[in-house]
């Protein structure tokens, strides 16, 4: 593993119905493209960003602030890619 880095960023869920199936799937797919670990924090709860089931258990509703965190190779890129999903509102609505 090359120079490991940690990167984190806050995002807000703008989706009307919250982080439901389809957006969760997009997060997982994006996260899985990278070798680094991806975690998502909501308050004091942390889930694995590469686990669909885990993300569903967050029940992140509209307006929720989440912290995206990646560590390991490509952490910066992973967080950038994930943030883009939130910024474009998952290209759905």
């Amino acid at each position: 593993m090359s120079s490991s880095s940690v990167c984190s960023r806050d995002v807000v869920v703008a989706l009307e119905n919250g982080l439901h199936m389809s957006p969760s799937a997009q997060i997982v797919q994006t996260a899985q493209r990278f070798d680094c670990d991806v975690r998502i924090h909501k308050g004091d709860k942390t889930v694995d960003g590469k686990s669909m089931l885990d993300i569903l258990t967050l029940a992140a509703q509209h307006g929720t602030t989440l912290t995206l965190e990646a560590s390991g190779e490509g952490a910066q890129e992973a967080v950038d890619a994930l943030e883009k999903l939130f910024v474009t509102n998952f290209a759905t609505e």
Partner: protein
Amino acid sequence: MEIKRGIAVSPGVVPGPALVLGTEDFRIPRRFVSVDAVEIELTRFRTALDSVCGEIAENERLASERLGAQYGAIFTAHLNLARDPKLRDEIEVLIREKTYAPEFASSRVLRRYAKFIQNLGDHYMAERAVDIFDLEKRLLRHLLGEQREELSHITEPVLVLAHNLTPSETASLDPDYVLGFATEVGGHTSHTAILAGALEIPAVVGIGPFLSDVSGGETIIIDGNHGEVIIDPDESTLKRYHDTQVRIKTANEKLEQLGRLESKTADGVSIKLYGNIEFPEEVDHCIQRGAEGVGLYRTEFLYLKDDREPSEEDHFDAYRRVVDPIPDLPVVIRTLDLGAEKFPHSLEELAEVSPNPVLGLRSVRFTLRNLGLFKTQLRAILRAATYGDIRVMFPLVSSMLELRQAKMILSDVMEDLEEEGIPFRRDIQVGMMVEVPSAALLADRFAPEVDFFSIGTNDLIQYTLAVDRANPTVADLYNCADPSILKLIRMVVAAARKHDTPVVVCGQMSGDPTYTAALIGMGIRELSATPFSLPVIKQVVRELTIPQAEEIAAHTECLDVARDVENYLRGELKKILPEILD
């Protein structure tokens, strides 16, 4: 260990492996695998999961091609669920470390997630649990493959858990392997309750959502005395319940010895006790408990068993099986008493869609509008009646015209049989259920036209008090002890006495020892109840004198409120039979 509470509808306690009836009727065949087989089982699991992923990917491709990318995305999400590494890990850990069978492990893990999501308090997300259940089903289908066991082929005793048992589901179960029932919905008069009562197995209904807590295969306890279901009981609980089971069995055996004693009051008045049955096999229960015949043979199960209407021979065979062991005792066969709420597939076409089925085309109303079906049953009854003391009874009669029409059809059937030279019983006794207030109010008109009355308290209470007992919001208003019910029973007894028409009381009231003294005091001399309850009823009868019963009945007349009547009667019962089990 987790305890769920519901409505106790059939007594007894029983521990055993759970069988969850889902919409697709999967059953998890076993809970554990042997340590040696773990690697094989892991491979089996991975293969199944890969197949599921392949299947979903194929669906994704088809949906995207044919319907567009946004529909494909639904499957993309499912695929991500199925490919979730965490899911795979968690299931594999259970298989490897706890030697759970893959079916059980998969179900366990997925149901835990589903339940978690359901309980998040987010309505929209809660619905996503459906997607997880869907994944569970796909996975089980692949795991069980050809081995998927049909419900009708259960080969070991199980406790059946379901949202709601449909008549066709229960009819396809082999009663020998069903130890108990527990359902999420239902009340005292639900199909499950009646079936469990008939099979004499413990049942709890109306538990509310609990199936996501159970995978199937694990040990649970159904406590039909207290209305509890215990999931994954700990050792001491299990031990306690085993003891209870033994105690109940001993008590029942003691009561069954009563079967040989006469059913007479302490002052020597004979009170006839009959059994209510659903299946011919239950005649044995009746005989064991000392019943003097079958006071109510409900024939609905004949119609629920297959997807076709029962033939005359189906009826005839069933009736012969009831009457042959007891050719000298009366057997009252009630004609089809189905309501729109529980029509089986075979009769669905004939049923009307009613916003209010209880007040709709049910029971004798239905048979009078479907004379072919009615005549088939009557032919079989008349033919079987040559083999014993079979009597026929029409349910839900609400007007004289209905009774007379039914009797006219019976005569038509006799004519047909006579023309065909087929032996039948011409002087068959004809009775009617008194279970609609109109019939109770006009009992003096009905009495001369029937050979006997049978007061069906369940429907009589429902129609008199305008309460659907299956509706939990009003179920507390349903009460046998309501003064209006007792008054109607008194009216029927008085009318019947004028015309020397015998009156039997059937329904749950006659099987509850609380009401035995009051019923006898009001002049009832014949009771028909589930065979299970006959010994304790007989015990009450034997302790009682007629003047004592009459005094109790007279006292109830001074009370205005059901609760007071009930409390009073319970108090009296304790005096009559201090050792009675609660």
